């Protein structure tokens, strides 16, 4: 054990907070889609990968300025979310959950293979690094700080959107009762499409921040997908607040666990905590009763 309560330990705790921002952002879209449509996009991390490739393409190949490429990247994934719902999800909406998992799992492998065919196996990156800030002998990446701020901001924006707009209210209403709302004149098909677009857009937003921190390659989704899915389940599938809290818990396990023991122990302890919680509360920390 290597866990002295020194400045390095504090740095690990704060880095855990910043990592949580990224994980929370990734969990947000997945939870929104599940909460409203009741379908788990197992291929969610692959949509992020699509966004990363789109940004790379628009910036490095087409030559557009990075902010424009990022905006287009978000748009591409939002449209991909709509297509995913219209083409893949809608036909299996009323089938058992296992069918929905399998088709989105199929999309996962399709997107990986398509990315390999389209972009090759080489690791790509946009060559932008934002540097870091240091104080009191602690260092923090501007990428992670930016991600953290964006994650907080987008949660507030989404919260306001769902609370204060007509469409947001309709989305919340559909998420509470899918059967009754059509009788009240709400077009659930349209709500599902809008939710899918927002879910895709959130994946695109995550992609804009991840291209600043990670190389792009067809399997990057596998690096994050299982962790994000675990966070969503831990928080309570469909609970955006739960996902946010779970992201902070898991990130602290990873960084503090990794700091006190070996890096891999951080992940091991995080998964152990997940299993214990699921035994005690199968619905997750903030989920409704199963």
């Amino acid at each position, binding site marked *: 054990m*290597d866990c002295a309560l*020194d400045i*390095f330990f504090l*740095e*690990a705790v704060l*880095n855990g907070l910043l*990592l949580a921002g990224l994980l929370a952002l990734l969990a947000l879209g997945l939870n929104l889609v599940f909460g409203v449509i009741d379908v788990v996009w197992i291929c969610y991390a692959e949509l992020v990968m699509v966004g990363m490739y789109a940004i790379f393409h628009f910036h490095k190949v087409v030559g557009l300025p990075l902010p424009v490429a990022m905006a287009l990247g978000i748009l591409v994934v939002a449209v991909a979310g709509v297509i995913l719902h219209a083409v893949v999800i809608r036909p299996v909406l009323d089938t058992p959950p296992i069918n929905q998992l399998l088709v989105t799992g199929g999309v996962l492998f399709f997107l990986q293979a398509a990315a*390999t065919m389209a972009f090759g*196996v*080489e*690791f790509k*990156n946009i*060559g932008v*690094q934002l*540097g*870091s800030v*240091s104080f009191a002998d602690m*260092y*923090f*990446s*501007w*990428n*992670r700080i930016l991600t953290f701020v964006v994650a907080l901001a987008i949660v507030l924006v989404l919260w306001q959107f769902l609370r204060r707009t007509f469409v947001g209210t309709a989305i919340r209403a559909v998420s509470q009762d899918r059967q009754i709302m059509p009788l009240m004149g709400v077009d659930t098909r349209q709500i599902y499409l809008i939710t899918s677009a927002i879910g895709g857009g959130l994946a695109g937003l995550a992609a804009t921040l991840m291209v600043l*921190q*990670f*190389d792009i*390659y*067809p*399997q*990057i989704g*596998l*690096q*994050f997908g299982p*962790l994000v899915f675990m966070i969503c389940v831990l928080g309570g599938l469909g609970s955006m607040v739960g996902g946010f809290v779970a992201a902070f818990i898991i990130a602290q396990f*990873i*960084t*503090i*666990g*990794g*700091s006190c023991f*070996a*890096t*891999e122990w*951080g*992940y091991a302890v995080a998964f152990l905590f997940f299993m214990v919680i699921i035994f005690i509360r199968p619905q997750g920390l903030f989920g409704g009763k199963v």
Partner: protein
Amino acid sequence: MLKLTTGALALGLAALLGAAGPAAAQKEIKIGVIYDLTGPFAAGGSKAAAVGTQIAIDMINEKGGVEGYKVVPVNADAQSKGDVAINEAERLLNDAKVDMLMGVFSSAHCVPMAAKVDAAKKFMWANVCVASAVFKDKNLKYVFRGQVHSDQFGEASCQFIADNAKSKLGMDVKDVRVAIIHEDGPYGAGVAKGNKEKCESLGMKIVHEEGYAATSTDLSALVTKLRRASPDVILHTGYNPDITLFLRQSKDAGLKWKALIGHGAGYGQIDKLMATFGKDADYIYNVDPVAAQLLDPKTLKPGLGDITAEMVKRYKAQTGASEVPPHASMGFNQSWYFFTDVLPRAIKTHGGIDPEALRKAALETDIPEGGTIQGYGVKFNPPGHPMAGQNARSSPVVMQYIGGETKIAWPTALKTIDPVLPLPKGHTYAR
């Protein structure tokens, strides 16, 4: 006259067809070639090695094959997944009925595959994977590897530091603080074990040692611990994307060092490192079997320099790459001396290409130093040896990247530069 001419043409055609008959019936050796053509390992060097192997096959077939046998590759993609690699090996041997297996990039694939192939008494020629665990105390009889093994990787970096501690770092060897970090598969763990044993035997201080998953999403905790341990030298063994993640997070976290020594895989891809990190990748060291084009052809057996030049020419033409990574040499070299040394002897002396003949021919291989394009010789440890099947004459070099070019820094007999050590002031990672 017309009839005569037609008759003559018919005769000529028949003669031509007759001559073509034996060629059409040319004997074949079917080789199952397994590499990771997709997934993270592909860009980590596996694809480069696959191209190198294919170039060797092309060049051999253009010369008319080997003792009347045409080399027919049956390519398989292990997809950077261990289970796929094993399934493909079984498919190639049992369904495609190949005569032998060749290639294999990842040690994580190599360890179980070698044991399985050997148990089935089939022949396997490993080109790239390095883990000593493939052979150590396994007494394999049908698996051979000319490639350098992980213990040697681990030893080379420590010896390089020891050789330069006083003159370059101005430190006694016993004062050098070393951190060993590695991906936690057989490859990383194998090299790290070699690092630890050698560095400790030389009296260096191991201030931190840690393995991590190559697919880790975050290495900030590891970087923080390294800052706390404050090593002079970091010995790192990893694939991609973990290497780029480590370098990025180290930069962001202000981690500094006097030398960073990588051990193949992701560190062997200089063009990728330069593209990602630019000048920050300058002065990184990489332990690997040497990229053949870096050697002085005069130190090699006559004719090998031309072979290297042809390989480099074809590699650049096929891939568009400006730099030819060591993995291309590994894929080519191991295949080349198999086709030019082992296979002819199996056919001529041992009666064919069955596993028994190939095995006997491999055990008789005796190529002196300078006899392969990567400089080292080839002599396989015999059955009963703790490393039976491993080349006893293989050796790595320590290379350094300077201004986007690869230079040899160690051993002294081969070095092409005076190594830059410690990192010069002003470098991103310099203390």
